[in-house]
Every structure is written in C-alpha cells, then in structure tokens.
C-alpha cells in the first residue's frame, strides 16, 4: 500500500465519520417533520435537532448527588461507541478502511456496550424511573439483540463472511425477493423500530412512566450530557437505517474508489435513507403504542422470522461460508 492509497483510505474514513456525525440529527429532524405532516401539523423545521443540541450544549449540567463516576462517564462512552461504529460500517462505499478491525458481531456488541453503560447510569441516580427504564431496556434487548444477530447472520452466511464490507460487496447481486432474505429483512425492520425506540415499541416524544423505556433511563441527564446522548441516539437511528439500506436493500453502492461512483453512490445512499426514514415515520403515525408486555410478542416475531431465515439458508445454501 503506497502513500496515496493510505491517504485515500484516511480520507474515506474521515469523510464517513463526519457525514455520520453531521447527518444524523437531520434524519431525526426529517422523521419528526414527516410525522408532523402526517398529523396535519407544521411542526418544527428539519434543522431543529441541531438547534436543540447547541442549546443543550450551552446549558448548565445538573448532576444528582447520589451518582458515581459511571453517570458522568456514560454519555462520553455512548457517543464514542457510536462514532467508532461509524468507522466500521459501510455507508456509500463498500470499502470500509477500518473494516478489518471489527465485523457485524463487533458492531452488535459495541452497541451492547453502550446499552450496558446506559442501563447502569439509569440505575445510578437511585430514582425509580431510571431503574424502570434500565430494567425494561435490558429485558427487551434480551430479544432484540439475538434477533438482530440472526438477521445479520442470514446475510453473512449468504455472503460467506460476517465482515460488513464483504457482505455489502456481494449483496448487489442478490435476489431480494428470495423467501429467506425477505423474512430476514422484515425481522430486521422490526429491530430497527425497536432499537431506535420508535412507536409501537417505545415513544421518543413522551415522558410518561407507563410507556417510556429509553427516555426513562436517561431522565436524569441534562445539559451537555443530554446533548451527547441525544446526538448518539440520532446516530443510532442513522446507523440502523444505513444497515437496512446497505445490507437488506442493497444496490447502488460504490465498490471502487473513483470520484464518479462515490458521488452516485452517495446520492443513492441519501435517497434510500430518506425513504426509509419516511417509512419509519409512517409506521409511527399509523400504529398505536403497544402495551409494554405486548412488545415482547412483536420482538419474538422478529426473532423467529430471523431464525427461520437462517435455518432456510443453512438448508438451501448460499454463496457458502465454506473454507474452500
């Protein structure tokens, strides 16, 4: 590898990171805007999340006296984990410069690391709400996480590797209507809804103790800590839409690092993310929030669909996770 290639790779990695960081609040804003439109409201502008973040960053932080270092450490860790994942997944080119460092399993476990600390932070303030949020989040994650793993394994077996960039490189030629792929995609869409805390699983817009999950965990946060967590949530939304767009609805991604192909690929990527974000907003508007103990049924459906897809691939064969 010569200097020009290294430089190019650094450039790709940096541009990916910056895009991930800066685009994320816009996606959140877009989902809110679409929701407002569907509810016949004008709603805040799509740039509102950015204003919110700036405002939060300027505000004073109030920290509970009962908390320990876990509470202050968590926002930084969550934000850092999201950024790290931004370096590991393919956005608009299948050549992820740092892809060798971590595959799909590593991404899922990094998300779990963030969740682990968020749940601890929820318990740290000694309020009943935080514990409630942590308990619910960890319980639902107990189904979400394996379901996500199985859905991704399905495509991984098809591509012959759990490496995300390999999966994306091979996904272009797939028949998207093959039953196992369809099952896994539906399973993963449910996971996207659940993981990003959207209706019918969770509602990011309310703070009602009967229903809230993620918001309850972070109830004690304020100021810059809240800003970091909110921003990380936006990045998580973008992350999951990206995974959905690039792995389960593949096509159009650049497999070479030329200016033209990247420009086209970037355009397609943005379009796909916007369409999927609209879809998420539509689901939010057309479904009612499920009762907490109905949610596991929905998640179990996703788990079973993904498992079925995986077993089908094992039986029918894919490109082969074979050694030869």
């Amino acid at each position, binding site marked *: 590898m010569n200097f020009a290639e290294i430089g190019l790779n650094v450039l790709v990695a940096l541009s990916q990171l910056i895009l991930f960081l800066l685009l994320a609040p816009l996606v959140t804003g877009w989902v809110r805007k679409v929701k407002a439109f569907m509810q016949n409201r004008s709603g805040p502008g799509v740039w509102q999340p950015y204003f919110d973040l700036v405002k939060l960053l300027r505000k004073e932080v109030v920290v*509970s006296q009962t908390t320990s270092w876990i509470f202050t450490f968590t926002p930084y860790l969550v934000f850092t984990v999201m*950024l790290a994942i931004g370096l590991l997944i393919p956005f608009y080119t299948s050549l992820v410069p740092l892809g060798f460092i*971590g595959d799909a399993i590593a991404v899922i*476990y*990094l998300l779990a*690391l963030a969740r682990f600390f968020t749940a601890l932070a929820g318990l740290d303030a000694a*309020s009943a709400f935080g514990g409630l949020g942590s308990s619910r989040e960890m319980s639902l994650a*107990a189904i979400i996480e394996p379901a996500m793993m199985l859905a991704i394994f399905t495509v991984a077996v098809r591509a012959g590797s759990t*490496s995300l960039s390999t999966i994306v490189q091979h996904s272009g030629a797939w028949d998207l209507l093959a039953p196992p792929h369809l099952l896994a995609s539906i399973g993963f869409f449910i996971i996207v809804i659940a993981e990003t805390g959207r209706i019918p699983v969770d509602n990011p817009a309310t703070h009602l103790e009967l229903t809230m999950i993620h918001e309850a965990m972070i109830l004690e946060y304020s100021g810059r800590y809240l800003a970091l967590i909110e921003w990380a949530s936006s990045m998580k939304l973008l992350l999951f839409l990206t995974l959905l767009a690039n792995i389960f609805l593949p096509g159009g991604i650049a497999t070479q690092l030329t200016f033209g192909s990247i420009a086209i690929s970037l355009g397609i990527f943005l379009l796909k993310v916007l369409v999927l974000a609209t879809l998420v907003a539509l689901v939010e508007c057309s479904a009612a929030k499920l009762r907490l103990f109905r949610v596991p049924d929905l998640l179990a459906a996703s788990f079973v669909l993904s498992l079925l897809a995986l077993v089908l691939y094992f*039986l029918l064969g894919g490109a082969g996770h074979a050694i030869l």
Partner: protein
Amino acid sequence: MIDAQFFFGLSLFLYLAGAVLGALWCLRPRRSYYVSHLLALAAGISGITSSVPVLLGQSPYHITIPWLTALSNVAPSIKLFENFSLQVDALSAFFVFVISLLVVPVSIYAFGYLREYEHKQSVALLGVLYNLFILSMVLVVTANNALFFLIVWEVMSVVSYFLVTFDHEKTENTQAGFLYIVMTHVGTAFIVLFFLIFYQQAGSFDFEAFRKVAANLPDLAKTLLFVFALIGFGTKAGLVPLHIWLPYAHPAAPSHISALMSGVMIKTAVYGMLRIFFDFLKPDLVWWWGLVLLGLASLSAILGILYAVTEKDLKKLLAYSSVENMGIILIGVSLAMIFSSYQTSTFAILAAVALIAGLYHLLNHAVFKSVLFLGAGAVVSQTHTRNIEALGGLIKKMPWTAACFLIGSIAISALPPFNGFISEWLTFQALLLGFNVPDLIVKIIVPLSAALLALGAALATACFVKAFGVSFLALPRSEHVQTAQEVSSSMKWAMGSLAALCLVLGILPTAVVRLLDGVTGALVGASAAASMGVNPLTLAVPSAKIVTVAPLGLALILLIVIPVALGVAYMAGELRTRRAQTWGCGLPKLSPRMEYTATGFSKPIQLIFKSIYQPRKEIEIETDVSSYVHKRIRYELQIESPFEKYFYQPVSAFVLKISAIVRRIQTGSINTYLAYIFIALVILLLLVR
C-alpha cells in the same frame, strides 16, 4: 537451563508441603494459614513455568513415581498401582496452566481474606484443604492411568466437599454439601463404569493401552462409553439437567474457593471429555455424539443464564452463570467433535477453530469468573450478606472492588474490548462454519444453537447490569452497607491483576491462539494458528471470505474518538456543573425504598419467559377498615426448577422408599452385620470363584 519437568515436580512438591506444613502447624492457625497459602502461591508460579514451554511446543514429559515399582516388588498386592504415572502433554499443560494462573492471584487474595474466617473455624484446616484441593486438580489433569485418575478425582471431590461445608454452622451449607457429594458420586459412578468398559477391552488401566484398543471397539461399547462419559463428566461440568448441585455448592464455599471451583474445578470435566473424545476415541468419533453434546450445551447456556437473571443471591447468580459459560465452552468442544467426525483435512481445520473457541472461552471464563467471585467475596466480607437486595451504593465505599467487579461484568457479558467478547466471537464464527456440514440434522441444530447462544449472551448482559447496578450503584439499601470499607491491599491487588488479565486476554487474541494451537494440533491434528493470525493484532477465521477482528484496534478506536466526544461536550458549554438531589417524586427526601430492586429489575424478563420459569406467586392482602384500604400486602414469588420438580424429586422419593425397605435388615447390631458380610463372601466365592 532448568527444564519444565523440574518445575512441574517442584509445584507438586510445594502443594504437598503446603498441606503437610499447614497440618503440622495447626496449633498456630494464623501461621499455618499463611505458610500454606504462601507455598501454594509459589507452587502456582512454578506451575505456570512448567506448563508454558509445553504449550509452546516442547515435547511432552512423563513422570513415573519411582518408589511405587520398588514397593510393588516387596508387596505384590499393590501391583495394580505399579503403573501410576503422570504425563504432561499439551492438553494437560493447558489445564495446569489455567489452574496455576488462577492459583497465584487467589492465594494472594487469601492472605487478606483470612480476617473473614479468623474467629470462626480453624483457618489452618482451610489452608491444608486448599493445597490438597489444588494438588488433586493438577493430578487429575495429568494422570496417565485410569485407576490413578479415579483416585485423585475422588480426592478432588471429597476435598471440595469439605470446602463446601467448611462454613458448617449454616444448615444450608451442609445441605448444599450433601447434594454436592451425592451428585458428584453419581457422576463418579459413571466414570468408573466408563473406565471398566475400557479396562475390559484393553486389559490394562493405562491410558496408553486405551489409545491402542480404541480403534477396534464394538459399536455397543462405543455408544456405552459415550453415554457414560457424558453423564459422568457432564455432572461435574454442570451440564443441564445434571447441574442442580452447582448453584448450591459453589456459593457455600469460602469465596476464593468458589473462584477456584467455578474457575477450574468444573473444567476438569472438560479435560476429561477432551481426553476421552479427542485422545482415546478420536479415530472413530460418531457424528451424533457431537450433536447430542451441542444440544445439551446450548440448553445449558440458555437455562443457566435464565436462572441467573432472577437470582438475588450474588454468589448463586455467579454459580448459575457458570452453568451458562460451561455451555458456551462445550458448544465449541461439541462443534469440534462434529467437525472431527468427518475426518478430512478441511474439517480438521474447522475443528481446530471450534476447539480454539472452546478452550479460549474456558481460559476467559476462569479469569473473569474468578474476578467476580473474589469481588463478591470482598463484598460479602464487608457487608456479611449475599443478598443483592440488601446492598447498593458500594461503588463509593469500595471503589477498587467496584471497578474490578465492573470489568468482570463487562468481560462476562462478552462486550469488547475485554476477553469474553473474543471467545464468544470465535464461538459464533465456529457455529457459522457449521454451514459446511453435509448432514441435514446438523444444519438445523447449528443455527438453533446460534440462536440460543445469542439469546444467552443478551440475557447475560441484563444479568450483570442487574448484579453490578443493584449491588454497587445508587443508595445503600440496608444497614449492612453502612460499615463497608475498601478491602485490604492483598485482596485489591489480586482482583486488580485478574481484571487486568481480562483486558490483556481480550486485546491480544493471536498470542492466546498461538498458545492454544499446540493443544488443538495434538487433539484434532490440524493447526489453525497460521490462518487465524493475519498479523499479531488481528484475529481471522478461515471462512469462505475471510473475516477478521482486531480487538486492540477496537480499543484504540474508542480511545482515539474520545477526544471528539470531549470536544463536542466542551465546544459551547460554560462547563458549569451543579450537584443536586435526585427528584424524589415530590417527597422531601430520596429514600432507598424508591430504588428499583433486583427482583423488580428482572421481573420483565421473568414475565417474558414465564413459560420456562413457571413461577408460583402468592399475594396476601390484609385489609383494615374496608376492602379498599390495604394495611399490609405480602407478596411471595418462587421459581421452581422443573428438573428438580419432575426428575430429581421423584427419583429421590424412589430411593428413599427402597432404603426404607432395605432398612428392615439393619438391626444395628455389629454381629448381624458381620454375618451379612460372611454370607456375602460365601455367595461371591460360590458364584465367581
């Protein structure tokens, strides 16, 4: 240069010396305790020195016991024991390494832990048993003769029984000990049967003779051997449904002993399985053996953690999680058995990957489970309770213990960049490699097993959020916590070094894989290290398109992007922080009663999986003036294990019934018993002659 064999002999001698000196000084318990643990520490260090060269490729060494031959010439009746010898090959060396690696920090921990037992029981006895326990484990994994193996296996079981019941003033401990000794002997009985079948075929108890006859065993004998080995060693391993003793016995022992029991003792069962399936029976492994073990291992992985999640007893929670982790280890082992049974060079490499996954997790579990047990021991020594519901807020009183327990919790939840992640990653990859197996039934079971493993991993995260969060964070829930202080420096350093080891094993996977490669090379006949180590920091799996993970890289990325996070946080802020009270829902003061309890925390999981838990609930409401005014509500929840209810209880009832019948011939008079013995002898002479 002094060779490895010398150090191995030295470590055996030191353990023995520790036991003997400890016993001699029993009238000076303090000194005896220190001497025996100091000798164990030295023995551990010398054990590490003796095992690493063999793991790195030095040829195996053989140790015979010289005076046994001489003695058998004088007294022919012990001719049977003449061939007792020890052999340290790569497999044995690996287990000696794991045992010694734990013995070092655990012995250091024991110095500070003395205070907990000083005024209660004879601490001299504890030191003696400690040394005997470790010695017996080392001998189990190096014995080269079935009879000798059985003797040291039994010594290990009995000594660990004494350790389980060491705190015998509590009835629950003696009950746990009884359950343990019964179950472990059921297991031993099957192991005895196993070796007898082999003896019948080979005509000798030597392992060497076993290897020779293994190739032409009749089918029935092979199937019997598999079933007996599975039950015998499965009992020790805590494989579901033979696990019932484990959650009672491990917590009952003193905490540093629990660390050794969960960390290494149950792994001697894995050693037994590996020795039998890959050393003796390897040429004709049957494919369904691995499949049966895979099924049971996956079941253990999920059920173990399901029961751990709802557990309130800190040490019992850890014990249940050992059942889960034994399941994960055996998933790797059983996959290696499935792959090995196809007998091609391609499958041999897959088997090597699967076996490395299993052994890696074995090493990791030994390390992080010891941190957790030692941490739990530190907590118990300060608060005198194992009940999580009575703890809370310990992170401020015991910051060092809390940090170590946190690292252990992250590692056991398989989160990067700690060691649990890398071995679970390998296990998942090994499961995906199962795609290559041609048999249909394997292709169905393998993804199911992956699903159960993923479910177990996610539940483990929930379980350890609960264990750490409820015990260490928020407000103290009872007066037990008020007087808690940080533990002594020996305990701190012991936990700290193990926690550091969690990180080291997590970020340097290729070094560990190289260490394990000799073991898998000897067992499955293929080396995977070359294809798994892309470069010193990147671990790869030889799948169709190569997949890699570089945990050090993950850790570094996290470190590199932290400044971005900090930069964002400090970008616009005035950086003012105000400390205030948590909002107490309008009440004047926040009280610990407002916090979430451990039971409350795991309640949703319990509801989601209620078909497995089958909880029994009782709610009693006392009313006063009218039925709308509740005076008191009593809520009782009990989770019964279906295995105990539907299998063990009927069996034990049956055994009791039989015993009641047999008791009629027991008069209590010694003359009658002598008569019985005489009659039995005569009958035997007539029959067998």
